[in-house]
């Protein structure tokens, strides 16, 4: 006897099914959690990124009826939700930073003499963060969805609800702006002189 196995259900089918049977949404989670979690962690750090990823899927579940059934993949839709969650998080981070900007800070630990490589990597990371922070939020999101989440132009457009032409122009503007930023130029210079592969650049953009 031959058993014919069908194709795995698409996200559209899972989401549609989840409107009647919530458990079906777990299939969507299983498929997309890791890339979303990794993207968010690379942008805001391990702990906050994990929390935001969990929040993203809770929101996606509660808003699943708004998923556009013309698309079979939910990936752009989920990254769009993740982007909104991230923006909200960053605004609150900003408020907290501003509120505490001049409060006395704990003394920062002094580096040990053998940590030059890590210092260089940290310096690159700080420079990258500074240059990314100089971009407009909408441009930064497009740039990092492209570079870190590796979404296509079309997927970014779907995620952010903007036309592909706008994705192209924002990406182009972000790339032009960032590569002229002094902090980015410095990071490029350091990276070319690094004696190791830059595997430890901290995220948090």
């Amino acid at each position: 006897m031959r058993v014919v196995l069908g194709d795995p259900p698409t996200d559209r089918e899972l989401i549609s099914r989840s409107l009647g049977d919530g458990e079906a949404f777990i299939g969507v989670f299983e498929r997309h959690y890791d890339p979303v979690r990794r993207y968010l962690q690379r942008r805001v750090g391990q702990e906050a990124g994990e929390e935001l990823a969990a929040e993203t899927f809770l929101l996606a579940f509660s808003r699943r009826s708004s998923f556009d059934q013309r698309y079979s993949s939910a990936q752009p839709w989920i990254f769009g939700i993740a982007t909104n969650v991230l923006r909200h998080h960053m605004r609150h981070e900003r408020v907290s930073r501003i509120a505490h900007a001049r409060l006395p800070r704990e003394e920062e630990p002094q580096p040990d003499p053998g940590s030059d490589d890590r210092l260089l990597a940290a310096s690159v990371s700080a420079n990258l963060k500074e240059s990314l922070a100089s971009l407009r939020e909408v441009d930064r999101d497009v740039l990092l969805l492209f570079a870190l989440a590796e979404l296509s132009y079309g997927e970014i457009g779907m995620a952010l609800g903007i036309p592909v032409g706008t994705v192209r122009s924002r990406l182009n503007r972000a790339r032009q702006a960032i590569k002229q930023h002094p902090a980015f130029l410095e990071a490029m210079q350091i990276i070319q002189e690094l004696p190791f592969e830059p595997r430890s650049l901290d995220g948090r953009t």
Partner: protein
Amino acid sequence: MDELDLLKELGREIGRVDADARARALRVLEERIRTTGSSPGPSRTPRRRTRPSILAAAFVAVIALSIAAIQVMLPPGSGGPGTAQATLGDLALKAGATESSVPDPGSYYLYVRSSGFVFRTNTDIPSDASWSFIAPVSREKWLASDGSGRVLERYGKPIFVNSADRMAWRSAGSPELIPSRDDALYEPGGLSPRDLGAIPLDPSSLADLISSGGVAPPTTDVGNDSLGVIAALLGEVSTSPELRSSLFLATAELPGIESLGRLSDPTGRVGTGIGIVESGVRTELIFDGSTTALLSSSVARVDSEGSPTQILSELTYEVRSIVTSTHGRPR
């Protein structure tokens, strides 16, 4: 190596799979699924359809023409403002097509509950010392159509903006920063313009009037610049669909107004964002794209490059309803 290659290195050490994180997130999601059953959420609820009156239809047609006129006036290639105007035009159309929810004068109150935080500066008169702080706030407002009503505010524990503020406050003898509860009644015209019917509906006239300070700013923390006044009228006042629609179109005429795309408010509700910088203060608003209700507002002082230097307020509008007294609350 180009700029994209370098960016791809950011956080590269973060694992592609993290079984523990996945298990934790899955538990939370399963719990949510278990507690909510299979309810697909409120956005699934079909909206009651009503037959629009001829007047309402005519008004929508006028609004559509106004939007077209504004868009024609845009210079070619003006991407940002054009986007904002398209966004606001869409909101104007939706607002104009809704059924009026303005209560009868004298009989009912618009109840609005909001929460968030506000920035305050206190000054000690004898020493002329001042200190600034941010306080969490929960606010309930009962507003009659003549602009009278009641505002009940509850404040949480304040946070000093910096250590110098804390020192100044201590030097002045640590006076009370803000009362934990503030309950005030307002005479007609005290909370919003006394006669909303006198406000012009023509978007250009309305924009001019608001920009020149001709519309008394409602009591609010959204700010007293143009967008702040508009936000307060849209968020905290019972406005007719016609005025509401015109307010969106007037917003589209504000120089420097920009569309911020889809944003989520502090409670996670996704809406349409707009923003503007006026007199060194940036105001951002998020509206529900379907109902046009104001979901949240944030106001921050910004430097010459537009970067925020001090948050002044952030408010989330949680409940709007009609009640019959200044002590009534929706059930």
